[in-house]
């Protein structure tokens, strides 16, 4: 059954059909949220909000773009909005850090020497560097790099989602990578000193 057929049935009142869409797209929505938020619980909550918001606005979907493009756009906008809101409230963020809200950070890093606490500290530190470096990128560069690295989308697919040209996406990704390297280099030098 195509997305369009499912949407037609939902709009005719068959609410249960929406479950099919959620199952089909939840992993890509979650992964994209993860790329922006770097926190499992926040990404879970935002994924839930996004699917509820998508359901509420489903009648506005006219099928001009594919449903996946549409939901990617909603996800990117929701993630950027969430980041903008949280950056407006640095006090709350600091409080969260102080009270150890490192929720959902227990990823399975491919650590060779996982028992070694020193290795774990280095891993946590590197994790923080990359998060900081990604968060310092301008929104468009960040969107392009998340869609490319976390969602494995081609430059053409990213261009459709971001409503721009493939050339512009290539330039955004190149600049994002250069900025990331520069930022990571600065952070690692700061650590050495």
């Amino acid at each position, binding site marked *: 059954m195509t997305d369009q057929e499912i949407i037609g049935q939902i709009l005719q009142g068959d609410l249960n059909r929406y*479950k099919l869409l959620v199952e089909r797209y939840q992993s890509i929505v979650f992964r994209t949220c*993860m790329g922006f938020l770097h926190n499992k619980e926040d990404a879970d909550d935002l994924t839930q909000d996004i699917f509820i918001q998508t359901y509420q606005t489903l009648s506005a979907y006219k099928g001009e773009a594919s449903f996946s493009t549409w939901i990617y756009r909603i996800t990117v906008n929701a993630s950027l909005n969430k980041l903008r809101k949280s950056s407006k409230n640095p006090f709350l963020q600091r409080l969260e850090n102080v009270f150890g809200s490192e929720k959902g950070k227990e990823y399975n890093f491919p650590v060779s020497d996982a028992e070694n606490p020193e290795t774990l500290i280095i891993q946590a530190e590197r994790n923080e560097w990359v998060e900081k470096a990604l968060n310092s990128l301008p929104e468009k560069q960040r969107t392009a790099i998340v869609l490319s690295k976390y969602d494995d989308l081609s430059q053409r697919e990213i261009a459709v989602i971001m409503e721009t040209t493939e050339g512009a996406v290539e330039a955004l990704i190149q600049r994002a990578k250069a900025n990331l390297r520069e930022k*990571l*280099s600065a952070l690692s030098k700061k650590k050495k000193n």
Partner: protein
Amino acid sequence: MNCQLCQKESDAYHSGNLSEGLRMQVEMHLEHCRDCSESFQLWAIADVVMEAEKAVKSNPFLVTRIMAGIEEMEHEGATRLRIPAYQKVLKPILISASLAAAIFIGVFVGSTYLPTGTVQRIPVELSYMNDAALESVDLYSQL
């Protein structure tokens, strides 16, 4: 190979998508160029972190949570739809009617009030009259 080309192939190199010839050229450049070598190492770190985040799985009950949220929302919407006559029409009418009544009563009660200052006064001369000295009118009428 120059630095620019080397950086450009960085992604393909890390994901193992370079041809044997290009891979060897990149590695030869990295052996001699400290900048590119450091940059590659940092990118490798970023790659590991991003791959780890990418592998994180969402809450297994997420679909159930989403569907429950939507069903609850729909239920609330249906309850709202069942009483539109009261919620959307009757309530505002009642509120505006009682407001109009309150204003009318206020104006009406206000207009019936007469301050003591405007009540007709008894002429001062009358207070000098001696009622006892007045002749009774009845006396003459009986004649």
